[in-house]
């Protein structure tokens, strides 16, 4: 009766394309019927029906500005009474981002996350600790549900200090940690500071989410903790985690492409790039009921692997690159719009204009946004206390608005 987790993983290319076409047609039919935004835009293209997967290129793109424009319920494809969960995240604009889930949607996400766990060899004999920052609270819930679905013992997300997290890892005999790269690095450093040896832990695997590998974190964690490390890809706002996951060969991430159809495009032209070349990852949901996404531009850069994976699965594989296609920064899985931050900072400081630069910085296991603000005549005050209060207020406001920690550093104007 029940369907396997990734149905298309063992199908040949023809069968997979057939299943994806069936789902794409149903998604577009449903979206056109129930969401005026999709109906109007698709009608404008003059496309009467989707007759092949290649027709997707004729459909218009969606991006984060559409989510903000149709806030809160304008992109929902089912009546509100069918919605059983509403996820909300800080969003990259002035309004929070929102997505809804029906019972069926939750079942599908649970299967997808359970599938990613299964690929990481997590079974009902494992104990999972989910430790994610507040901005990824939605994912924490999904990783809890997916873990419970495979019968593992799950310790849900809780705001614990790094010392207590280490105690939980050791004393509760945790075998699997779900975390961001920044926290995993911090935890490892703390462990060695406390002279805690990896042998004292039962940890077998770490599932890293939120950011691609920076080229050394995965190797360092593997070597220092003697664990296997698995990358999972997802979107923090919508629709969720485990959109792509690593198999035992750790050679790219397998897309859950019976539920999500990926494309890689040239961000400047919107045209698909040849297989193997890097571009912006664009996603179309194939089974989402409540909140269908059609050609959603993720802002993440990736490239397709042209060859089949040695694991035998035929699902599309991507290499997730540590770059962004747009004016966004990815900080612990949360996408931050630099333009929006600048605007919000200007408002918080009540200044007509500001000059600043932004970068990601990691402090005590937490990735944060560091803003270097150029001190000018408007901002300058001979009362240090007043200036300090103003900066603290701006930091708190931006932290609250973006769901990640924000620090502001004042720098001197170069003459």
């Amino acid at each position: 009766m029940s369907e396997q987790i990734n149905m298309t993983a063992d199908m040949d290319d023809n069968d997979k394309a057939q299943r994806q076409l069936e789902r794409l047609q149903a998604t577009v039919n449903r979206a056109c019927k129930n969401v005026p935004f999709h109906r109007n835009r698709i009608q404008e293209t003059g496309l009467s029906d989707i007759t092949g997967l290649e027709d997707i290129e004729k459909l218009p793109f969606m991006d984060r500005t559409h989510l903000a424009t149709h806030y809160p319920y304008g992109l929902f494809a089912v009546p509100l009474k069918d919605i059983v969960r509403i996820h909300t995240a800080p969003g990259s604009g002035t309004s929070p981002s929102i997505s809804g889930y029906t019972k069926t949607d939750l079942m599908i996400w649970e299967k997808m996350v359970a599938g990613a766990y299964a690929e990481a060899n997590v079974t009902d004999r494992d104990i999972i600790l989910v430790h994610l920052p507040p901005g990824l609270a939605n994912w924490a819930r999904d990783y809890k549900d997916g873990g419970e679905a495979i019968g593992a013992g799950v310790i849900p997300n809780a705001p614990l200090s790094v010392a207590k997290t280490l105690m939980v890892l050791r004393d509760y005999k945790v075998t699997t940690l779900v975390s961001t790269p920044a926290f995993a690095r911090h935890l490892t450093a703390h462990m060695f500071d406390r002279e805690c040896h990896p042998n004292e832990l039962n940890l077998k695997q770490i599932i890293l989410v939120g950011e691609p590998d920076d080229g050394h974190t995965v190797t360092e964690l593997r070597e220092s903790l003697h664990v296997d490390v698995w990358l999972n890809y997802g979107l923090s706002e919508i629709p969720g985690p485990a959109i792509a996951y690593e198999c035992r060969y750790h050679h790219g991430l397998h897309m859950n492409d019976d539920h999500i159809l990926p494309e890689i495009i040239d961000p400047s032209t919107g045209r698909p790039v040849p297989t193997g070349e890097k571009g912006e990852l664009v996603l179309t949901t194939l089974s989402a009921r409540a909140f269908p996404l059609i050609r959603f531009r993720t802002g993440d850069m990736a490239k397709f692997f042209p060859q089949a994976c040695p694991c035998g699965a035929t699902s599309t594989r991507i290499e997730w690159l540590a770059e962004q296609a747009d004016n966004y920064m990815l900080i612990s899985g949360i996408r931050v719009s630099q333009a929006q931050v600048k605007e919000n900072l200007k408002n918080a400081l009540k200044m007509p204009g500001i000059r600043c630069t932004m970068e990601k910085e990691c402090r005590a296991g937490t990735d944060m946004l560091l803003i270097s603000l150029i001190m000018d005549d408007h901002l300058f005050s001979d009362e240090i206390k007043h200036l300090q209060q103003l900066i603290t207020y701006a930091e708190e406001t931006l932290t609250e608005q973006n769901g990640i920690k924000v620090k502001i550093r004042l720098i001197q104007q170069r003459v």
Partner: protein
Amino acid sequence: MLKIKNLRCCYGNIAVVHTVSLSVRQGELISIIGANGAGKSTLLAAVCGLLKNWSGEIEFKGRPLNGMSAPAIVRQGISMVPEGRQIFSPLSVMDNLKMGAYTRFKKDGKSRVAEDLDMVLQMFPILKERAGQLAGTLSGGEQQMLAIGRALMARPTLLVLDEPSMGLAPKIVEMIFSTIQDLSHSGVTILLVEQNARAALKIADRGYVLETGKMVLQGSADELLVDDDVKRAYLGKDYGDFLDERNQ
């Protein structure tokens, strides 16, 4: 096993099935559900060669069915249990069953047909009891069993059933669905069209939902069983106000 791509079916100039794609893999039990007039039976008629006015691709075991007659399609291995049974009322139960093997006598010979007849009569003992009785005098449930038995006599690799629960008492429906499930477990691939969404999905592996000739949903049976859209499709209701009673 069966692959349908971009199927469009028309009665005259009126299209009733619009660019529909679906697939059935070997050994699967697939349900197509939807309200009256959604296009379910028309889709089956196209698959079984009973409707000529269609375009798109229908492929069975890798061979296109375009232009094939209904008997040729039966010879390919697709056998249909039609809506309303459509048994031969003036003929006996036994003759009805033999008619099901009409296309096989020359190819397979009488002895293999006789073996299958034994198998069908073992599966439906009531038909053995009523072997000499005129089919038109059977009860609705017995007629449905006869229609299924007749279809099985063609030794199908894909059994297609159109509304097998129609006009039957709930208890009989339960029995018929249990028989369909047994057939599925014995390895027969099944494509089932039903208005009784819940009953059909309970025994299915996967399902498709048709609404006014368009496919609007598909997925595993357990996913569809909890889906509110399925209830609406089954009841033939449309979406009301988006901000519905929850917000009132």
